[in-house]
């Protein structure tokens, strides 16, 4: 298994609500970081090691927008430049900790770990549904003890729903319906339509929040990967034969499962997800019910993924077999591999 990740990419490091005017430690791409929000709200990401004796700055404190090391009191401004050294009148000109480009967008704090000269905000993966007034929802972050690519694999092939999530969103239809896979330079898409089926219990209850209906539905799952580690899944059901496959979803309900997975170490990742919907927008209890419901479903994935990573570690000489169902995951890996190879060439 290739465990590398591109450095020249935006990675989510925190939910907007997680980042406060206090120090937060995170590890991204094997680098220890300290994060905080300035008083004006701007996110700051610095290397989590004092220039002087390497104590993690996250063990220190924040005074206004200045980080104070918890060992000898060296201070750093939000650019990472040292602004105070004890018992001397001058400051060593090279005293700096690395600062990383950081941006808040789509309710996440994004960090750029690679060449800062290339950090273009336009490259942040599209997750606009997460703060779009046409959509409502919320999500969580899970620290999963597996390589981030195993989570991408998991999301790119939803046949696992049938077996991992039986009784909620998974049923035989998902494992049996055909699907199409397409890709371009930066994305891979898996499209699956299950037409004229009985809705699984979850979708039946969601549809009834909008339309009282008890019959057959057309169900869709359109999984879109954006390199290196964002997977947005367009999901929903509509009353059978009302034109949903052709684009008219007015007789149905639509959700997006938004996922972005950040490599922490080679064997751990931060899995940020949200579930948003375009119906019943004002109903806060629906938001919480969905968030907690998805949270329980994803705990099942977490269990599988951690066991899978442990099995990979226990069998270092073995590699995966791949099936037809893995096409989406394999395109995703190939696109990411190319990003990594291109970075390593230059």
């Amino acid at each position, binding site marked *: 298994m290739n465990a590398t990740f591109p450095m020249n990419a935006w990675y989510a490091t925190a939910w907007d609500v997680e980042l406060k005017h206090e120090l937060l430690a995170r590890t991204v791409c094997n680098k220890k970081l300290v994060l905080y929000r300035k008083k004006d709200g701007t996110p700051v990401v610095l*290397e989590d*090691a004092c*220039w002087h004796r390497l104590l993690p700055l996250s063990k220190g404190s924040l005074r206004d927008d200045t980080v104070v090391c918890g060992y000898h009191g060296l201070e750093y*401004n939000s*650019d*990472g*430049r*040292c*602004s105070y050294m004890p018992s*001397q*009148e*001058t*400051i*060593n*000109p*090279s005293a*700096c*900790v*690395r*600062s990383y*480009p950081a941006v808040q967008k789509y309710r996440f704090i994004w960090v750029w770990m690679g*060449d*800062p*000269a290339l*950090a273009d905000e336009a490259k942040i993966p599209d997750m606009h549904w997460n703060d779009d007034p046409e959509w409502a929802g919320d999500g969580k972050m899970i620290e999963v003890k597996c390589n981030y690519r195993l989570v991408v694999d998991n999301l790119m092939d939803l046949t696992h729903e049938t077996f991992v999530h039986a009784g909620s969103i998974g049923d035989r239809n998902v494992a049996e319906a055909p699907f199409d896979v397409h890709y371009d330079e930066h994305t891979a898409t898996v499209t699956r339509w299950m037409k004229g089926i009985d809705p699984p219990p979850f979708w039946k209850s969601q549809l009834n929040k909008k339309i009282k209906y008890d019959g057959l539905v057309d169900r869709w799952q359109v999984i879109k990967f954006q390199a290196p580690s964002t997977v947005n899944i367009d999901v929903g059901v509509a009353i059978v034969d009302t034109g949903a496959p052709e684009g008219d979803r007015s007789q149905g309900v639509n959700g997006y499962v938004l996922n972005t997975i950040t490599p922490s170490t080679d064997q751990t990742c931060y899995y940020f997800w949200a579930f948003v919907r375009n119906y019943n927008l004002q109903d806060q209890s629906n938001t919480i019910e969905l968030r907690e419901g998805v949270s329980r479903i994803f705990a099942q994935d977490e269990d599988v993924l951690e066991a899978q990573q442990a099995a990979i570690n226990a069998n270092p000489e073995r590699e995966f077999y791949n099936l037809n169902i893995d096409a989406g995951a394999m395109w995703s890996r190939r696109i990411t591999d190319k990003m990594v190879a291109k970075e390593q*060439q*230059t």
Partner: protein
Amino acid sequence: MRYRNTWEEATIEVVEQVAANVMQFKIRPKNGTQKFTVGAHLDVSVLINDIPEIRSYSLVGSYEPHAPYTIAVKRLPQSRGGSKYMWSLKPGNKIRISQPTNHFELGFGAMDYLLIAGGIGITPIVGMAQQLADRPGKNVRMLYLGQSQAEMPFTETLQEVLGDRLTLHYSDDEGFYDMAQILELANDKTQVYLCGPIGLMNAVRKTWEESPFETTNLRYETFGASGLFAPQKFIVTIPRFKKQIEVQENETLLHALEAVDIDVMYDCKKGECGLCQVDILDYSGDIDHRDFFFSEAKKGENKKMCACVSRVANGNITIDTAFRGKQK
């Protein structure tokens, strides 16, 4: 962040004079070049009187895959000896170099930049100008000072990159540069990157410190190589050790003390950390403080000096070290 050096053999590929007294070297390490960010330098093991010493040279320009490292060295007739060694090198010669490390990192978070270079201090600034010139939303101005065009390398490259955002100042023709003008090129958000001889650095720092702008927005790098006086020999008396030694013009006080087994604590060897400070008991002539550790006020008192870089001009000195044990 400071990194331990890993040393490797490298070959001088090209030697080319790029200005009066400035030689450019293209150096290829045995195991290929490593990626570096602008502002980075190489440590080079130079031989001075056949004794290996370490000198730091900024990398010129931006990293390009497969291209050798480029450094430029000014010949200083009375240097500590590094430039003399470097100028003796010919294509094909082998040297030992470290990996690139960066203590003068260009931050990309600002919108407004002022680059200031004096003389050979241009070397780390070239890559910064290249990186900032075409970046949307970034304003960059540059001031490059020297004696005359003939003495200043890379002016053509910089003019191509920056156009009228580059101001060149030739002191032979135009005289002393009025440092107050830099404040007209800057605002309270401007990050300044400065490298040059100590006289220029002191003048910019003083102007900046007296301005309303944040001191943390002034970034600079020094390798402790320049002073207000040309290096001269001087005699050092150390009463505690009942010794009198002569510091040669191409030797540091620290080196001369170590040579007679007088221990002095030190670390950076470029006048930044202050660990090598010694007490001045008496002196004649001028103390040439070449460090960036002591404040201007402390330097003016002439009670302490950094043995790694600072010197005496036109006189001699009596010092004490931190030793308080019994004499053998």
